[in-house]
């Protein structure tokens, strides 16, 4: 097995009295796409900032490429690319200038930086916008430009903090496609997200974070197998009757989850569970049988849905 690219041991980040990251252990292998999943405030971004060597570690140890961020921050940053949660594109520069001038921060020779900028514009499907002002780009284009910019130094590791938050479905799919290509080229990726479908699409392995701690770890599939039944029956009842109806579901499937707007029944056979519910005289307004997802794992582990 190759040397892990990231090794974090009992990693802690504190801001005054507030503990944002509370002793996590993480290893990321070269070539892997690794995800931090969790609601807002779970400690994902703080973890990413420590990995990106822009936030000092409070305690515990962190190594990237075998180097310590406290002493070799600049050396490490030279080998990684960062896509921050909020775009930090330079609005006083054109699309093309954003790329090559950023390359200069990595000490690329000017001709090389400009050559790479042209390539990356192609990759990000922005070639026809090379001379546009950044402000005139759509949200999806800005995000693609951010990703292109993060690749200017040919990074071995790419850090993406909520790469598709706020994008429409089509723009998300374009972005996922670009990230998948990078994975095929062997670029290691670490991303945070609170979208389950994104994590399932992109990640080889992920950890679920809550209140600064890791509450589960594994591949999307193994997490679902470990923590959930194969299928889920979603039942909607008339407003205000969830409680009483849920009580009557007792014993159907493995367990039930009562949400504000619906009741979830975890069962290996969702159809059979629905038949049983009908047999008990329950009349839901709607019923849906679906496969279990990471959303269900998250709900079970944290007692909250991700949208919170």
């Amino acid at each position, binding site marked *: 097995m190759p040397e892990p690219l990231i090794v974090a041991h009992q990693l802690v980040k504190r801001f005054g009295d507030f503990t944002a990251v509370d002793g996590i252990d993480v290893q990321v292998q070269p070539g892997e796409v690794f995800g931090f999943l969790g609601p807002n405030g779970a400690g994902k971004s703080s973890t990413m900032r420590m990995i990106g060597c822009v*936030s000092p570690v409070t305690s515990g140890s962190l190594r990237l490429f075998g180097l310590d961020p406290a*002493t070799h921050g600049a050396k490490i940053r*030279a080998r990684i690319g960062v896509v921050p949660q909020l775009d*930090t594109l*330079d609005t006083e*520069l054109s699309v093309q200038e954003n790329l090559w*001038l*950023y390359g200069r*921060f990595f000490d690329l020779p000017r001709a090389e930086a400009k050559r790479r900028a042209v390539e990356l514009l192609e990759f990000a499907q922005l070639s026809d916008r090379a001379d546009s002002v950044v402000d005139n780009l759509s949200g999806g284009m800005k995000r693609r430009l951010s990703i292109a910019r993060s690749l200017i130094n040919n990074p071995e590791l790419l850090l993406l903090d909520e790469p598709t938050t706020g994008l429409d479905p089509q723009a998300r799919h374009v972005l996922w496609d670009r990230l998948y290509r990078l994975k095929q080229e062997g670029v290691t990726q670490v991303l945070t997200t609170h979208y389950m479908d994104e994590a399932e699409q992109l990640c080889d392995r992920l950890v679920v974070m809550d209140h600064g701690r890791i509450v589960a770890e594994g591949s999307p599939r193994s997490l679902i197998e470990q923590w959930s039944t194969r299928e889920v029956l979603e039942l909607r009842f008339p407003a205000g009757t969830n409680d009483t109806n849920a009580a009557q579901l007792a014993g159907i499937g493995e367990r039930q989850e009562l949400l504000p707007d619906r009741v979830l029944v975890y069962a290996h056979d969702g159809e059979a569970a629905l038949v049983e519910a009908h047999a008990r005289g329950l009349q839901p307004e709607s019923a849906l049988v679906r496969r279990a997802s990471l959303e269900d794992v998250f709900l079970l582990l944290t007692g909250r849905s991700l949208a919170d």
Partner: protein
Amino acid sequence: MSTIFLRILPPAMVVRRPHRMIERHVVAYRRQWLIIVSGFFEPLLYLLSMRAGLGSLVGTVTVAGKAVPYDAFVAPALMASSAMNGAIFDSTGNVMHRLKYARIYDAALATPMGPGDVAVGEISWALIRGQMYAISFLGVMAALGLVDTWWSLLALPACALIGLTFASIGFVCTTYMRGWADLEIVTTATMPLFLFSATFFPTSSYGSWAWVVQLSPLYHGVALVRAANAGVWTASVVGHVAVLVGLSAVALVVAARRVDSLLRK
């Protein structure tokens, strides 16, 4: 060995690529050169109004036992003031925009660039901008016949020192500001400096309050530019240089630390 060295030296104090920041500004301002040019006119208009208007009323001013025409007295002070204003302007409003709104420094710090590179790069750029105004102002002074010694060329490094001092102080102040409204404080602070740094009248006219004038960093800058322009050097020049160098050094170190503590939490 190098690890020990790096542990002792805080990351904010490492300065390797400040010129990358300057390169960015050169490219950005290629499209906004009018903004740069406009900064040149304010001191020029002041000088012309002093020469044509006030100068004819005042006549001559006695400096170090020598009578000089009023415009020749005021011109070096205006040159020093424009170096201050150019540096302050760039290191407050523009730095605020890049720090808080465009988040350009956040982007830079994700690369091998460090807080020291950002602070030194930004302050250097402000200084360069101030220096461009100083050079053109000296040219105008020469054209108006207000320069009669080669010593006057030393007014340029004097203005660079003024620029460095005020760019560093301005940068540090900006890191403490909460938003655009706080920028008003800058004008409130530089206006009295501009008026009461022995700019428009000699120190003697302040009477027993002359010592207050000496608290103004600009006063020391004005004194330097005046000495260069007159080609008359006294021991006090050393003191003026020491004050400005000392202020710059402290402000530069604080500036890099502020970038570090603000952006690398």
